[in-house]
């Protein structure tokens, strides 16, 4: 059974059908790319998957379970975590605390234990700190654990967002333009990080990206969207050679 199955997904905003008849199957362990020109509806697909928008039609199944139209919080608990195209960190909080907020549902500690500083509070905090530092070290951010996240350089903010999403222990990780605004060196590092979390955390990844080097470098399968509809789907090498795809990106003749 596929990890993620999307059938005939559509959403209508007034007269605009932003996503129309979208089908996608992501197998466990896939590193899957979703590409397309600006305004093709890629982020809208992510927002539908994570419960920000409710689809007009269609079914989304995660691990065989219907999660269509459920609220964002429940979908995260079912096992989908995401990053955002326009970075959404908890800007006033430290890097470490950002990841600890991601760990929120992995640990239990009653408010009373926190307020009265019972031993269970210290035990849980210690576990959370260790787990958070472990995740930060994957992205070479452990040295900046105390930095206020808004003060991080742009590339590191993107990485922190991935670390925070990983902290929720997802089955499927959605990355919305992870390399946007990164220089070539940072993109190289990011590609290595994405490969690393896929190997070591057994992660399935679906990503939106415009940087073709990254897409061609790490994605095994691609879906190309144009004007809310699927243009083509398949192995990365085949898709990138498709004349329709080249036409969508570069225009006619």
């Amino acid at each position, binding site marked *: 059974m596929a990890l993620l199955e999307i059938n005939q997904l559509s959403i209508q905003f007034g007269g605009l059908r932003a996503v129309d008849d979208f089908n996608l199957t992501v197998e466990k362990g896939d590193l899957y790319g979703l590409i397309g020109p600006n305004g093709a509806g890629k982020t809208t697909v992510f927002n539908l998957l*994570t419960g*920000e928008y409710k689809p007009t039609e269609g079914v989304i199944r995660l691990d065989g379970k219907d999660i269509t139209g459920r*609220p*964002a*919080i429940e979908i*995260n*608990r079912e096992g989908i*975590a*995401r990053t*955002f195209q326009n970075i*959404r*960190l*908890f*800007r*006033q*909080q*430290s890097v*470490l*605390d950002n990841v*600890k*907020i*991601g760990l*929120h*549902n992995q*640990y239990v*500690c009653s*408010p009373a234990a*926190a*307020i*009265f*500083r019972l031993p269970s*509070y210290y035990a*849980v*905090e210690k576990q*959370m*700190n260790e787990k958070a*530092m472990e995740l930060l070290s994957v992205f070479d951010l*452990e*040295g900046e*654990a*105390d930095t206020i996240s808004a003060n991080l350089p742009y590339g590191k903010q993107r990485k922190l967002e991935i670390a*925070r*999403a990983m*902290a*929720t222990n997802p089955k499927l990780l959605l990355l919305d333009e992870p390399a946007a605004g990164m220089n070539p060196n940072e993109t190289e590092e990011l590609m290595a990080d994405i490969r690393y979390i896929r190997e070591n955390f057994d992660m399935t990844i679906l990503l939106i990206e415009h940087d073709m080097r990254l897409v061609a470098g790490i994605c095994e399968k691609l879906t190309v969207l144009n004007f809310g509809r699927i243009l083509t789907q398949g192995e990365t090498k085949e898709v990138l050679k498709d004349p329709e795809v080249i036409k969508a990106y570069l225009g006619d003749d």
Partner: protein
Amino acid sequence: MKNRMTSMTKASKDNLGTILMLVAAFVIVEILRAAGLVNAHMDGMLVPICVYATMAVSLNLVVGILGELSLGHAGFMCVGAFASAFFSKCFENSMGVFPRFLLAILIGGIVAGIFGFLIGIPVLRLNGDYLAIVTLAFGEIIKNLVNVLYVGRDSAGLHFSIKDQASLGLMEDGEMIIAGPQGITGTPFNSNFVVGFLILLISTIVVLNLINSREGRAIMAIRDNRIAAGSVGIPITRYKMFAFTLSAVIAGCAGALYSHNLSSLIATPARFGYNMSILFLVFVVLGGIGSTRGSIIAAVILTLIPEVLRFMADYRMLIYAIILIVMMIVNWNPKSRAFIQAHSVGKIFGKKKTAKSGKEGA
């Protein structure tokens, strides 16, 4: 690993600084009182200062930590004041002072908390300024409601009315507890500076401990970015309810302290009206939104200033306004903030000294 240790001690050091500041201020005031250096007028200010500082801690939890605007916190204080005074009047002769006052404070907090919870159920599901609008209305409604409430007691039990005293139909042995616009008179005079200080201290510790916990981080995550908080599975409405209800409980306890410091408790606009709610908001904004310590300091200074400036007669409020503006500039100007942050330990002691000398000067 090393970094993590320093981060933990930094946060707890900061909290410890706030608590030490409170304890030191308490000790200094007690010494001054023992030495007879505090005049009767200033002595009478001590409990209201504790009440207002506790209100500042309570409102800072909603405005600074949760990031929602409440314009009716005086309403929660009013509920706590009347609920606790009602309880104390009912059990004035049947309980010892200590357990009765302790229960009165708890009841003030719980009843205000219930109101906070009920208001939160519909409003905190929404995003936007709805809480400000609804709490503003709540503050006004609760004040007017108390003003038409008549409650009396006789050998047959309690009698309620919202018309007048006569319609209660009390028997000869009856006595009024809440007399509409006359409010509650003769509440036992139990509040004192020590109790006030303890309520302020406990509220501060509760809020500071909450901030540095799993729940507190979740609450601040909602403030910083609601969509991202939802995307990592934080139950937004539940934590908003939790923080808002806790804030109402603290406001109710402050109200209980307030009502047991008055011989006659009346729900006047001056005490529980809109202007009071705005004054609490001024404490929080001037103290630096989100800073519990700053809110307390601002509450103490701004409560003292009108009293200290009393000798200026008509110019008093003019000077008060100028001080407000200067404090605002000093607190929010990036350069002065950078300076304060660079001298943060000095800041604790520096501010406390000014507060102390303010008390001495009076």
